[in-house]
């Protein structure tokens, strides 16, 4: 309660000007939004710092070290630099579209944060009952920004980047949505808080039920965010900088921020849906001991750590893997991810059916209750987890069967290896012995 002291003072102050209703429905959400936007912006800035440090660690170098201790102030220096740079609009560009595209990108990435449950109680900004749908819908608006930016720049590289991004994001959105359905079958709600609650009341993370779903979501999420190895829209070595080739200064940094914010969003959704959100074993004891706000803050930190772990996977992949080619990317989306997601849905349905059918069979109890999601007993969870992990192999085997004819399936064995030959020596151009 100690932490809420200043909040109450502020509330009293505001009551002089507004009614309590206005404060509850308008002023407080505004403050929350401001706080979240600031924090997310800071988070995004430091995600760039982390990325640079992690990549440096992988590449046997130091990374930013000059600005502040260990380069900790580097993101702020970068931001200031970008703010003061010239905001250049090419002469032949479509001015207004060029002007607005970065804002669409940033807005669509930031809006999603409104439904992400950062923690219990007051750490949720908006608990929308179709939260997950909203996440998918709003983040797909982001593609519009890329297309508009690519089109309005009046540059061929930007145009190619925009074309690639639209095709890529549209096809990976399908896989992304489908991969989430498995988890939704267990949660039986679209509200993100509800999904966290379902995992909490069941004391299990959905990644155990849905390992394949998690992997599919992560892969399609990475592709959705245009991150390496799927960073084709901005493929530096081919398209210079892809859709944002012509952008500079603050407008470029908005795209940059949107990219990182979108990454954080996908990580946050993955953490919420598959890693139990802000739940962590034993943290609940703080609540029962009466430290409510401390409980919320610790939960919030737990959530941040989970998101950071997924972000680390992003960085890790980016600095390890080469880039896919455009047609290969499409192949992966349509021939691998979407069928995998469909098989995953079928397997999840079978698993749920099996658990329900086995309940009561020879005295076996698999279902505890059905009132909030699907509450399973230890046996039920065991069955689910076994089917979940077996599902990874089943999906892999089925897809290998489907795709074994495709060119890229097993490139190494299709070809002859190079050979080493000790060629005969010809007449020397220079005779060493005659010296």
């Amino acid at each position, binding site marked *: 309660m100690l932490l809420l002291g200043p909040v109450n003072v502020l509330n009293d102050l505001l009551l002089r000007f507004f009614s309590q209703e206005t404060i509850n429905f308008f002023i407080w959400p505004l403050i929350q939004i401001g706080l979240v936007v600031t924090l997310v912006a800071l988070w995004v800035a430091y995600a760039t710092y982390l990325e640079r440090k992690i990549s440096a660690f992988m590449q*046997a170098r130091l990374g930013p070290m000059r600005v502040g201790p260990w380069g900790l102030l580097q993101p702020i220096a970068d931001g200031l630099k970008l703010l003061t740079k010239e905001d250049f609009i090419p002469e032949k560009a479509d001015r207004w579209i060029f002007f607005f595209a970065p804002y669409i990108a940033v807005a669509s990435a930031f809006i999603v944060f409104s439904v992400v449950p950062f923690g219990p109680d007051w750490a949720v900004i908006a608990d929308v009952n179709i939260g997950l749908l909203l996440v998918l819908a709003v983040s797909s608006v982001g593609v519009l920004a890329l297309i508009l930016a690519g089109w309005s720049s009046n540059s061929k590289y930007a145009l190619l980047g925009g074309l690639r991004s639209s095709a890529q994001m549209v096809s990976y959105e399908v896989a992304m949505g489908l991969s989430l359905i498995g988890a939704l079958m267990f949660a039986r709600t679209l509200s993100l808080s509800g999904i966290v609650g379902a995992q909490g009341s069941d004391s299990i993370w959905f990644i155990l039920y849905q390992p394949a779903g998690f992997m599919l979501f992560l892969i399609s999420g990475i592709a959705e965010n245009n991150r390496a190895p799927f960073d084709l829209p901005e493929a530096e070595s081919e398209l210079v900088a892809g859709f944002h080739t012509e952008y500079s200064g603050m407008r470029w940094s908005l795209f940059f921020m949107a990219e990182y914010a979108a990454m954080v969003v996908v990580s946050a959704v993955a953490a919420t849906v598959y890693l139990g959100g802000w739940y962590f074993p034993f943290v609940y004891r703080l609540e029962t001991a009466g430290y409510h706000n401390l409980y919320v803050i610790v939960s919030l930190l737990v959530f941040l750590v989970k998101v950071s772990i997924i972000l680390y996977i992003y960085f890790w992949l980016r600095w390890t893997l080469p*880039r896919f080619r455009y047609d290969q990317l499409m192949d992966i989306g349509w021939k691998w991810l979407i069928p995998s997601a469909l098989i995953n849905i079928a397997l999840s349905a079978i698993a749920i059916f099996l658990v329900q059918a086995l309940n009561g069979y020879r005295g076996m109890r698999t279902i505890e209750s059905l009132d909030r999601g699907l509450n399973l007993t230890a046996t039920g969870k065991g069955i689910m987890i076994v089917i979940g992990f077996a599902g990874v192999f089943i999906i892999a085997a089925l897809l290998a069967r489907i795709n074994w004819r495709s060119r890229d399936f097993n490139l190494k064995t299709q070809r002859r290896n190079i050979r080493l030959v000790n060629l005969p020596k010809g007449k020397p151009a220079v005779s060493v012995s005659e010296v």
Partner: protein
Amino acid sequence: MHQVEIATTQETLLDSPEMVLNMGPQHPSTHGVLRVVLRLDGETVIDLDCDIGYLHRGMEKIAENRMYTMIAPYWDRLDYIAAVSNGLVWVETVEQMMGLAVPPRAHYLRTILTEFNRIASHLLWLATHALDIGAITVLLWALREREEILKIFERQFGARLTCHAWRVGGMPNDAYDDFEKDVRQFANNFPKRLDEYETVLSENRIWLSRTVGIGVISAADAIAIGLSGPSLRGSGVPWDVRKSRPYAAYADVDFDVPLGENGDTYDRYLVRLEEMRQSRRIILQALENLPDGPVNAKLPKVVKPPVGDYYHSIEGPKGEIGCYLVSDGTAQPYRVRVRPPSFINLQALKQMCVGHLVADVVAIIGTLDIVLGEIDR
């Protein structure tokens, strides 16, 4: 600037409008100032044309106005990635025209140091090729090893990149004191590092799908175009100047030549990696048998090759780098002509690229391992 002409009457898929994309000269992956004009159907390359000359410095003309010994540093600027190899072709041509007997120690040191240069050049190729395909980390790993070689160059020649390594008749200096120690240290560490790169790339599915079957050129086509070096051997043609016409001390060392089987980008990648291993083998052998003695032959006050013409070539990292020299008996050459491997290898670009996607063009430019300093001269 010459007008780039590309054919405009070809059927495109779905009658979609073609797009002419001007790639370069300012582009991150054209390895300098190469300008490639691509005609695209969507992202598929229908036709392309290269525009070169942005780095033309008139090297061959400059050489006509310099004394024979003064030309060597210019040759470093041809292929600045492999300055040591380029320097060697010049001094050896002059030496052979004059019939100079270079001491064996100089020959051995030349062998060691040019092989080092081959490794350095191939490492830079690996770094940029991997970067073009999107594997960024390999770039910094490969440059880390290249740095060790450049340190040896710096201690030996006093410069890292354009070393002016050789003099007509031998070398400016004998090997420095810790030379053997440094070389052995590098040779000990290097195989581990190469294996590291292979773990990141060779078995990587993305790397395979980006390189296997990309930019295929048959042995017959490769010979017809005049490819040389790893680009030729990647197609399986057994040709290596070090073997067929040994220079320096290559007649005395034992090494294998890797030959590709499929002539694609992945084969050229494997060939170059294996060449680095063989280079290490050559270096260790030459170091083992390094004879004692002087490193410089006795030279006349003014170098004046006899009247006549002469062609000599060596196996540079990029391919056969040759030098055709016409002497009129004065202290300056009458005409010099370089056979630039990059320039001739680049001619295969169109044949390799047509039908592939834009992303492959970048990979193919990378696999040809061109240096614009040498193409434009």
